[in-house]
């Protein structure tokens, strides 16, 4: 009992120490002095919270058909004539609340883009570490592939991988694998950025004495790569990942918009915009414009935060 309390005290104590140290750090200092960084962080946290607990944030259920009423179909946004405060951003063709649809769509969009970036980082960092550490033929092969891929814009690579995976999976199973396919497609379109960054840094770090020492102590190569080298090349990866997250969000929305991404049964923001686009010319603009604005604000916040991180974590600018 006593020891448990002491253990807890020490954990809390350490946590406090860590918090106090990070609060005094240069980075936190920069962050506190940048209203733009604080605002974008707040927006991102709000989006993440809404995506994590959609049933708490969404004013109305979306997937339960019994709660939908066709009398509510095409209700305009609340502040316009004929609007209804139950539907802040209006309702769609089946009387579904647009705001709630956005929140559930956000969940899919964020999940796909975060998963894609995570996969992309894993592939890119591993290949970059291996290429930079071993050099030689392995390095040449990996970097030639990277150069080759850079010939094509990420958008095309993602569409192409998506198309090829679909063709190999077959139309029948496509719906089941749609989310997985789009994650892989986006991840494969972005790994080069990390591989190039990490390779260059690894080549420098690998010559340092502590790496030599670790090798002489008989540490295994994977251990050296991930425990000794990786922490020393991680900061730029973090910056690139933030900026790539914005790219991944746009890619997912774009693929879904052109009909190659998430099917309408589990709509992402891009799917919502695709569906809403069909009503744009007939005047029900809120179906497409509000999901689009939600997307734009998210990408903008991530880009602003990425800009801030790049400047704040770059020692050369100090």
């Amino acid at each position, binding site marked *: 009992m006593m020891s448990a309390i002491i253990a807890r005290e020490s954990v809390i104590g350490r946590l406090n120490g860590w918090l106090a140290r990070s609060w005094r750090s240069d980075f936190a200092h920069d962050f506190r002095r940048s209203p733009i960084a604080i605002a974008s962080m707040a927006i991102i946290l709000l989006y993440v919270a809404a995506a994590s607990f959609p049933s708490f944030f969404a004013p109305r259920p979306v997937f339960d058909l019994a709660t939908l009423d066709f009398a509510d179909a095409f209700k305009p946004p609340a502040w316009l004539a004929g609007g209804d405060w139950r539907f802040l951003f209006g309702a769609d063709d089946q009387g579904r609340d647009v705001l709630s649809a956005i929140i559930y769509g956000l969940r899919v969009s964020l999940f796909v883009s975060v998963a894609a970036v995570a996969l992309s980082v894993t592939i890119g960092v591993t290949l970059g570490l291996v290429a930079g550490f071993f050099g030689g033929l392995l390095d040449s092969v990996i970097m*030639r592939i990277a150069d080759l891929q850079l010939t094509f814009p990420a*958008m095309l690579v993602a569409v192409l991988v998506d*198309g090829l995976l679909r*063709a190999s999976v077959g139309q029948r199973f496509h719906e089941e694998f749609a989310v997985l396919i789009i994650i892989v497609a986006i991840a494969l379109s972005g790994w080069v950025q990390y591989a190039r960054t990490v390779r260059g840094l690894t080549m420098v770090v690998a010559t340092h004495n502590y790496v030599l020492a670790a090798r002489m102590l008989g540490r295994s190569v994977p251990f050296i790569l991930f425990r000794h080298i990786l922490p020393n090349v991680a900061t730029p990866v973090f910056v690139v990942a933030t900026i790539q997250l914005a790219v991944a969000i746009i890619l997912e929305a*774009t693929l879904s918009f052109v009909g190659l991404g998430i099917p309408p049964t589990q709509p992402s923001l891009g799917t919502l915009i695709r569906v809403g686009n069909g009503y744009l010319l007939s005047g029900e603009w809120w179906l497409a414009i509000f999901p689009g604005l939600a997307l734009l604000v998210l990408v903008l916040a991530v880009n602003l935060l990425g800009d801030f991180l790049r400047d704040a974590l770059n020692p050369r600018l100090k």
Partner: protein
Amino acid sequence: MIGFLAQRLGQALFVLIAVSALAFLMSHFIGDPVVAILGANSTGLQRDELRRQMGLDGPLILQFIDFMGRMLVGEFGLSYRLGLPVSRVLLERMPATMELALVGMVIALAVGIPAGIYCALERRSAASRIVLGLSLLGISMPSFFMGMLLIFLFSVVLGWLPSFGRGETVFLGWWTTGLLTASGLKAILMPAITIAVFQFAMILRLVRAEMVEVLRADFIRFARARGLSRRSVHLRHALVNTLVPLITIVGLQLGSIIGFAVVTETVFQWPGLGLLFLQSVAAADIPVLAAFLVFIAIVFVTINLIVDLCYYAIDPRLRLSDRAAGPA
């Protein structure tokens, strides 16, 4: 310079061969062309017969050489979806995309460079901060959403511009152009602006960043000390030194515009390569995809070579170092 050029040509050739190999493997392993031609109800005997006729039973490497040979004369087979020769389909669609990409890029450059110079010279002014903020908005704007906003404003609300298509086109030999008719010009405006917004933002930020850097250099201070006019210092001394990175980016972006045209062309139903590519992906039309891949690789490689040559034209230091120390 010869050595440098030879090295670049070698790289270009490597890219082209690698992409062709990729295209070949794609057409070979995804979807069976024999089944595609004969239909799913054909017998095994018929399939084997056709396979022999088409030389598909030979060793892989011979088939690849054959594939390369046919590719060199522009023979990519038939489109599964359209039943037409792939090369003809590509040629028909190419002018629309090229015009769109070029008009978009010209707009982006015409607005982006002056705005970038202004933002670099008047760094602290309110106007330049607003422009810089707007440029980040431009980078964050998904291009399909930009297109939709334009359609909503100019087609739905104001009714000034057509929301889809290319308008009337004129034949110039095999090239069709929409730039010579009033309806064609009206039709290209919104898609071109959609493409230009992202490029504008990139160009503006690049020109500004490079200008700010260059303006700190000693030779600028020296030029000012010599009493040269502001105009001469800014344009002849500062701007010229930002051109090399600018041309690199413009070259790369011209390629990526063709990639992004996939989206813009979908929004505006623009009858170009991007729309074709997308329809082919959706229909798993492998011959078109393979040809498209090779086509894009050729475009990129050509642009990269031109960019490399431009370095020599712009930066006399490269020519000098050639004479002093051999190829750069």
